[in-house]
């Protein structure tokens, strides 16, 4: 990242494939200068919650610090099978109902995509930053990076990049001189299918 104008507050601008401002770009840190948990400084890990409501993860994006835990309670009457194959953290909680709330720790920085084995449309994202520090672009696609002292170890990521198969972008590859275009598109809103509505009517009608 080359900071062009010294006097103006350094800002990164993001756009998607359509040229629209891209909100929600996350800048996270993969390595901390010092590990704040393993040095035994006594910081207790935070427990975040990614709930499951009406066959969706709520929230569908969690930003956590390395070493934090995430709990996956089930608020649906349907059972879910939550899993992740992401290298940052793999886990597998086979079908469980709302009586259980399994949790898992995230010792390593990176991004994790969470799914449900029997609900292909349930997708959650967890971004783990080494220090727990994050920067996010606003609705105008602008990200204030004045608090950033160095590019090293910082990466930009957006949930839509997972669908497009794009890896996180190193901060040094971004520029504040012009707009950073990330070739992603907003996912299509998925209408309820015929089968779903049939069974929904059946379930509602039956109960």
């Amino acid at each position: 990242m080359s900071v062009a104008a010294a006097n103006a507050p350094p800002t990164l601008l993001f756009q998607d494939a359509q040229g629209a401002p891209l909100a929600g770009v996350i800048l996270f840190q993969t390595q901390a200068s010092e590990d704040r948990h393993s040095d035994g400084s006594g910081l207790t890990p935070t427990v975040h919650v990614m709930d499951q409501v009406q066959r969706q993860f709520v929230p569908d994006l969690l930003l956590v610090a390395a070493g934090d835990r995430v709990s996956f309670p089930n608020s649906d009457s349907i059972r879910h099978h939550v899993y992740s194959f992401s290298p940052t953290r793999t886990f597998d909680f086979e079908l469980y109902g709302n009586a259980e709330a399994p949790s898992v720790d995230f010792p390593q920085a990176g991004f994790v995509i969470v799914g449900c084995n029997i609900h292909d449309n349930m997708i959650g994202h967890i971004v783990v930053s080494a220090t727990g520090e994050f920067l996010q672009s606003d609705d105008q696609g602008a990200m204030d990076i004045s608090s950033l002292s160095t590019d090293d170890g910082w990466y930009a990521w957006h949930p839509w990049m997972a669908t497009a198969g794009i890896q996180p972008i190193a901060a040094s590859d971004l520029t504040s001189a012009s707009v950073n275009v990330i070739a992603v598109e907003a996912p299509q809103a998925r209408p309820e299918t015929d089968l779903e509505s049939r069974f929904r009517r059946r379930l509602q009608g039956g109960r």
Partner: protein
Amino acid sequence: MVVNFRTRLLLLIAGGIGLALFVVVVAIVLATRQSVSLHTERELEVSERVLGQLINYRDEQLRQSAYVLADDFGFRQALASDDEETIISALTNHAQRLNADLVMLLNPQKETLLASHSLSTGERAIFDAHMEAEAITQTATTAAIILAEDDAFQVVWVPVRAPHLLGWLTLGFAVDRDLAEQLQQLTNSYVHFVIGRESLQPRVISSASERIQQQLEQALLTGQLDEFLSHEEKQARWISVIATPADTAENSIEVLLTASIGSAAQPFNALRTQLLVIVIVTLLVTVVVTLVASRRFVEPLSVLSRVADAIARGQYKQKIPFIGRDEVGTLAHALDSMQSAIEEREKEIWFQSQHDVLTGLANQRAFHEYAYHRLQRQEPWSLIVVNLDNFRRLNEMFGRSICDELLQQFAQRLERLCADKFFLARLQGDEFVLIYDGNLDHAEVELKSVLAAAQENIVMQQVSYSLALSAGMVEAPRHAQERD
């Protein structure tokens, strides 16, 4: 109507060739029509085989996919959870992976546990029949198409084992316009799925246009399928590739394949056009050739017929072109000699009609004509009748042959005397008539000299015969206007 020779020739030849061409064209048209029909029929046969294979292949593919799906660990885990909502959501989720339009979960006894569609009794009977048939044969080679909530689905069912038999997963795929269109592209014929063909409300899922689909439904309803097909220029074939063991009128599903006759006839249409052009050209050439040839044949004949016509009108000096040595030439020669012969004969006849046989003088008829014409002119002329008064006596004395000779001699004398002055004719027996072109006074003067010379004795074979003449005169138009 009089048709001349040339037109008759033209009609005969052109008609003959036209008839031959017509027969050929009709034969060809009939043959091509039959060939087109045969071709279309064969195309439909091929389409039927292809369609059968496609549907069975699709069945096989769907079954394979269903097996893979039913083998999914998470899916089986969900089905085994005994929690209805979880099972439903897993069923829905996984069925959607295969784009299934219908999903049913049956228990091991094949009773419905969960279903996206509720089947009526009749619909269920068809489904059961399919499953029973498959259970008996232990093979899954026949595709099953069932009705569910009045829509048609191709269905497959596979066991779900965990590892004991959990139940049967049934997946259905809509038999809709999209499928029909796909099949049409592959079979090259229009594909119509007909539901309840014999029922009161037949329904058609067609790869053809909506209009055709509606018309076909209407035709099936009113039982006028044949009329519809012939109107659309299509040939059709019913096929029962899908086994429907529990068919009822309302729930029967059949496939109607139709192929356009027009497309099969296309190559023949060009041929037909060429044929038409050939026919027209041939006829034109025939007409032209016939006209030219008939001109050559007929022209001499019409010349000769004009000549004959002229001869009939009494013109005997026709120039007859002698053409060739054929029959026409002979005819021309004959005509030529005929006209001179007729001329000669006619002259003779005319002469005889105008002259006295004995004396060679103009006869009574000639005199009458002359007098008639003379009267028309309204100019004065004189008529003198001369009688040989003693002729009867001479006749009695010397006999008829002598007297005839006497008459001849006398006539010659009169003729000689009258030349240039009088028109001379013998009326009858001893009566002669002289006509003078002028009034009586002049006539009298001339007559005196004539009579003087005329009444001299005639000497024949040393015998002198005396003649006694008497004459009477009238002047016309002074004395008479009429000939008599």
